[in-house]
């Protein structure tokens, strides 16, 4: 990982929330940082090109639009890539990770409504030949203020 300038560090850490809703939001950020608006824009563009910043935008709560769940599957290790590929073919699947556990595939399924969601889970089970653990969100306990990056 490369070293980040003080400006980059502050942009990455202090502006994960509270994007100004003003005509010139990047100018407002620039004012807070004591730099030019163009510097803020160029720096953000560079961080985005490098892949450090995914976007300047909104992060929504889960389950506000459509229905979603976290699903898990226990798959023999030598089949995991093939099964992951089958799961990934479903448009409703957005994240799919291998994790260290007997349940070794973990993926998020999002659909228009609960009926459709259950149908997709059934289809995934049929396509993969393994049962799916359906673990929908029941309650959430934290306020997401962004992630506090530690610069070392």
């Amino acid at each position: 990982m490369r070293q980040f300038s003080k400006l980059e560090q502050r942009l990455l850490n202090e502006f994960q929330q509270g994007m100004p809703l003003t005509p010139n939001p990047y100018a407002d950020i620039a004012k807070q940082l004591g730099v030019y608006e163009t510097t803020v824009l160029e720096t953000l563009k560079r961080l985005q090109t490098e892949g450090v910043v995914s976007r300047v935008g909104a992060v929504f709560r889960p389950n506000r639009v459509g229905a979603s769940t976290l699903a898990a599957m226990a798959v023999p290790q030598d089949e995991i890539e093939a099964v992951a590929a089958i799961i990934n073919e479903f448009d409703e699947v957005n994240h799919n990770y291998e994790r260290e556990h007997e349940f070794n595939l973990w993926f998020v399924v999002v659909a228009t409504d609960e009926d459709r969601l259950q149908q997709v889970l059934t289809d995934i089970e049929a396509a993969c030949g393994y049962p799916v653990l359906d673990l929908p969100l029941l309650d959430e306990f934290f306020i997401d203020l962004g992630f506090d990056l530690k610069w070392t």
Partner: protein
Amino acid sequence: MDMIKDTAFETALIEIISKGLPLVKQPYAAIAEQLGSSESEVIEGIQRIMMRGDLKRFGVVVRHRQLGYRANGMVVWDIADERVKEVGHCIGQYAFVTLCYQRPRRLPDWHYNLFSMIHGQDRDAVIEQVQFIAEQCGLQDVDHRILFSNRCFKQRGASYSRIQSDSNGAERGIAANG
């Protein structure tokens, strides 16, 4: 604007701000041009969406992995049902915890009911943070596991408009639900 136009406008706006603002001097004006509306309608639309509480946050979205946070552990805990709320709030207060959700048990296969996500610079850092949480929240004797992620097979967002217009779609910008 009438109701239907209003809803279509908001759906399009949600889609755009999820994908990200353009990096130009007047991003809301640029979005307005795209939507055939005015800058103030865009700003008011975003304010309306925020007022409803649908947004977790609005700003710079960073990629942890690219910032050197290479270890990602999903920590699952088996918490007595009557303590879930209290423990959930305790775990959720720490900045290095990026998600803290209650989910159902699926007995006999799965008995963990509280899920928290921790990003660390390496595995040891995550393990240390889990120990810290266990001490702070009185969970030393509680059964828990850290499920480190090895490989990511898919990480993408699709679109809200697709969700609302047909049955396809995963949400872009939705907080990782897992």
